[in-house]
């Protein structure tokens, strides 16, 4: 039984701008993705160890533009504008920050190939994928069971003593002795859904 499902951050209903499905979180030239939050997306080190990418998939272009500006202002040295995608900043060498519709990306490279990496990542933007993963919480005899078909990662706040709930085949992500207070799940394209 689905007990509740609320505060869903939904994708695909952007008010304006291009709405992409996202960028696949697993890439051969990227390391293991780390999922930050619904507000800050996911990140991954470059597989060669020479940099980092951050990717944000917003519900619309405005959300991505907000992320873009937040990223930009977190540089202690101001980033100059750069001509790339819808909007970009950086030098194209060590750093390139860009937005394409509702997808925004920050590339940092010590190999000075930020532009080529950004170009490659932009080409990997996916459109028209299936709807994002949604988590459901059920009360069971053992406690609270979280199901999230299609999720590749989850973060559960609260819930009690269950070692490391992780995405598993079939979407079962864990059984919790207490009712979680917040669940965030990410799908294969980096779209985050939160239920509270």
């Amino acid at each position, binding site marked *: 039984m689905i007990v509740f499902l609320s505060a869903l951050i939904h994708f695909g209903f952007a008010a304006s701008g291009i709405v992409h499905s996202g960028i696949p979180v697993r890439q051969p030239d990227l390391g293991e993705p*780390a999922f930050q939050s619904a*507000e800050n997306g996911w*990140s991954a080190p470059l597989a060669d160890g020479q940099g980092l990418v951050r990717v944000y998939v917003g519900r619309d272009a405005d959300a991505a533009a907000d992320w873009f500006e937040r990223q930009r*202002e*977190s*540089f*202690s040295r101001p980033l100059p504008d750069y001509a790339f995608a819808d909007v970009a900043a950086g030098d194209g060498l060590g750093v390139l920050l860009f937005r394409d519709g509702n997808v925004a990306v920050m590339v940092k490279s010590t190999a000075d190939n930020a532009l080529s990496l950004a170009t490659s990542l932009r080409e990997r933007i996916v459109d028209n994928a299936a709807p994002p993963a949604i988590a459901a919480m059920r009360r069971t005899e053992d406690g609270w069971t979280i199901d999230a078909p299609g999720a590749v990662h989850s*973060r559960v*706040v609260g819930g009690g003593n269950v070692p490391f709930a992780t995405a598993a085949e079939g979407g079962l992500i864990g059984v919790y002795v207490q009712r979680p207070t917040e669940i965030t799940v990410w799908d294969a394209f980096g779209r985050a859904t939160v239920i509270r």
Partner: protein
Amino acid sequence: MLTTARPLGTVSLIPLALLLGCGPKGIALGDDTATLDPHTPVISVSGGALDPLLAAETLLDVTADNGATVRVSVTDAAGTTVRTLADGLTMVDAIAWNGRDDTGALEPVGTYTVHADLLDAAGSVLTSTTSTFYIVRVGVLSGTLSGDRIPLIWHRNGNYWEEASTDPTFEVAAIDDGTTATPLPPLWDDLEQPPEDHVGHTLPAAYPYDVQPTITLSAGGDIGDAPVELEIAGWGTAQSVSPGDAPVFERATPLATGPGVVEETLTLTWSVDGVPIGVQSLPARFYATLGTPTFEQEGPPYEPWVAAIDPALRAIQGVEGTDEAVLSALTEWIYRDLGLVYDTRYGASAYTQYAGRGYDRGEFDFTSFLSRRNGSTINCSDCASILEGYSDMIGANLEYTIILQNFDLNFIKSIGATDYTHCPFGSQGCGFSYHAVTTPDDATTIYDATLALDGDDDPGAAPFTELLVQTIDGQEYLDRLVMSGNASYMHTQKEYLR
């Protein structure tokens, strides 16, 4: 069987050490023979109890005089002789018994009687004595540290496993396997991965450093009618214990005199009538924090992470138990010892992002930082997050605050640098668009692990006197940091952990 010899004719009652390695004590049941009539035949025997799985054997103290030979035997509660330990010995001082009968079978838990006879040359009994002997099986099934215990978190890949403060610290499936006593479990040493369950491991525990922890044990075994006591050295006095009991022991002294890691072995000594019969060792690791976590939020992940506080507390071991001392020590540790380098090219963060505009809701990816997943080149937001993350977990309150905006710098030595400069970005810039620092009191006092200031009278010119940013007045910090431009503190708040 072990015997030690002394010629007949001498008289003594010497308590013998049990073969336990726990001190020379014995039970003397006979009379003191110092005033004996030299012609009166005398025999005495002493020895009290054995846990055959904790000690291989125990010594019965037998003294005899004015006779020819000695006979020592053991009967069970039904009066049946189960073991003859000596018969015809002419010299004896101590006789070992391993709790087994004459066929080698282990006798069950119960009360036994040791009979000692002194015989003349013709084999007639001159005198006899007896002593009560207990065979017991003792052990601990679980232990739970309590008393202001702070729940710990094991984290991995952004997920968290939080122990409950009532969770057992260790468990064993059984106190023995029938032939061997189960040793108390070893420490769980993995700082990131928690065990699947509590059996077979002893988890570390966190407490404020000035707390006296308590531990509740769950006693198992079978002791029959034996008056068994259990004592933990340094954790109060011995307590009578029967299987099923849950004795509580309190550490006699506070955990430490300041924050750090306390590693010790708890020595559990079992005894009968005050005589040790066995010792068990429990390895323990205590994370002695300054206090409870100071995060704004509660519950995972806003509790001490084992992987974070373990190295941090070891690094600041020995500091005074004050906020100022802890924060200063953490600042220096991060600035000097973590191998971090300021991003002098862009001033880009590697582990911190802001979830709101205007540097609002800083999110620190502590999980990735601990593995240096994104490298060791960081910026001020990272340093503020790192310092706040460690300090809040240890119990010293900090918030991050942002210095805005676009100001030129006096001379600084950024983290990982060897020289002072007022242009950390070289030809690309001699100022910061913003700078994140930490404060416990709304920017009245500043801690900053990103850089060292020039601490002399002229922070805008050589020579340079290294001044780490530890407990520095907020206005003095700005005066030393900023060469020109408006700079003020804004957006002071707590960070979010990921």
